[in-house]
């Protein structure tokens, strides 16, 4: 490589670095998952309460990563049509609401989620922390990033904060307590997948030891499913009786793999829970 070309490459890298909308100092000095979870568990802000549904029959959708950018293009308009068509009672969003967490993006996605017209539960993703005030804005709009809610005394939804790619000691203890004490069907909803196919990718939860302990807990307490986003695609595997879903995305851009534009739909009826992938054509 000529020195001239090397200089140009360095200059391009520097420009890209400066032009990035992420607040790099804010990212470095952000509150860690441990600090966020400790805040969550103080009860301030309060966790969202259970939505009102027919306890014998209800439906909810799960998806990740609307990840809007400044043009605010996403699939939520298409999703809103399904709310009525499929009689969906509420939905869950698995983080990465925006790409850069700028004020404009945060306000736009909040408006779009409200416009869907049914209640939603939200947990946090890594992109939601790409500005210094990312965590504060998230709390303000959606409440804690780690909480649980029981729907119709049937299903316990446990929302975890994995935005840092790890769980942290306090949240691990809290998770085990929530799993241990529950007679309900249990579903964990969070940003990072534990397992996601065989390829050598770097978008799963980071530590293999953490993943081993986690899977051991999920199996031990008969968890029905681990629902994740982060990767823009659809994947399903059953590991020791636990469903592992990468749930699809509402982002407008290219998929990482597969037919992932859409969402995961759960239907509770006749005392059992069924799931279905809904693909946006």
């Amino acid at each position, binding site marked *: 490589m000529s020195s001239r070309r090397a200089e140009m490459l360095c200059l391009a890298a520097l420009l890209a670095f400066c032009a990035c909308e*992420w607040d790099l100092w804010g*990212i*470095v000095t*952000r509150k*860690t998952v*441990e600090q966020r979870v400790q805040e969550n568990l103080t009860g301030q802000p309060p966790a969202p309460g259970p939505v009102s549904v027919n306890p014998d029959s209800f439906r909810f959708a799960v998806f990740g990563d609307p990840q809007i950018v400044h043009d605010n293009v996403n699939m939520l308009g298409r999703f809103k049509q399904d709310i009525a068509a499929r009689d969906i009672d509420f939905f869950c969003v698995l983080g990465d609401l925006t790409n850069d967490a700028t004020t404009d993006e945060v306000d736009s996605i909040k408006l779009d989620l409200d416009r869907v017209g049914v209640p939603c539960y939200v947990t946090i993703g*890594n*992109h939601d*922390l*790409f500005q210094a005030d990312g965590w504060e804005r998230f709390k303000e709009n959606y409440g804690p990033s780690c909480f649980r809610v029981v729907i119709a005394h049937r299903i316990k939804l446990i929302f975890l904060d994995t*935005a*840092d*790619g*790890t*769980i*942290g*000691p*306090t*949240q*691990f*203890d809290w998770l085990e307590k929530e799993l241990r004490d529950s007679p309900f069907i249990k579903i964990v909803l969070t940003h*990072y997948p*534990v*397992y996601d*196919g*065989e*390829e*050598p*990718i*770097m*978008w*799963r*939860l*980071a*530590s*293999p*030891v*953490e*993943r*081993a*302990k986690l*899977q*051991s*807990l999920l*199996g031990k307490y008969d968890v029905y499913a681990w629902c994740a986003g*982060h990767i823009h695609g659809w994947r399903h*595997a*059953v*590991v*020791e009786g636990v469903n*592992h879903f990468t749930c699809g995305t509402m982002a407008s851009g290219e998929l990482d793999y597969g037919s992932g534009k859409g969402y995961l739909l759960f239907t509770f009826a006749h005392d059992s829970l069924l799931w279905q992938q809904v693909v946006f054509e």
Partner: protein
Amino acid sequence: MTKLPAALALAGATCYAAVASSVLLGYRGEPGVESKMLVTARADIVPIQYLKVDAGLSFNLFQNNGLGVAGLGLGVVLFSPAGLTLRFAAQHQQWNDWQAGESRALATIEAGPVFGLEAGFGVARRVPVFGADDYRSPFGWKSDAAEWNYVYRLAWKFLQKENWWLKTGFSSYDLFTLHSPQQFPLRLSGSYALKDNLDLVADVGTAIVGYSGGLVSFHELTLNAGVKYEF
């Protein structure tokens, strides 16, 4: 093609062998996941020229007590001036309290030391196994959670004195561990010659996680110290 078997036979006939063994006491901690003491024994054997064998066992104390990891590696030296070696290895790790285990196979190309540098890269198959009946078995190679990982290492002996040296670098694998592509492991190791053939050895390591998502944090700490004897 006839030269290689002849060379191996000649080397075997001359009883070429070198053995180094080490015993270490250590600690591994990962926030919220585990905090345990380690007792590790390993042997590095060169039974014949151009062949390297390394094997070892690691035991856990205070958490997931008992056998933690067994590792076995076999390397064939392809070009000795550069230390170019094709290495195959197998590991089995288990966490007894969690009834969880993981079998691993690695294939790597390694080089060095050259000017104090060592490097390696390759692929690994990671096969998690769960359940009371299966997790202990090193022969469990089927799992719905299996995955391929790439592996790498680069180490630099940046300080070499008469009786001691220090080495630093990053390595996603060794005889007992296989980090995931989502982790970036860093390590500092050193050795001090106590007397002929006997060295005091130690290492400290950590791993950066979250970098693939742009949110970086340090996630684990390993410490080991012990002695190494060359026969």
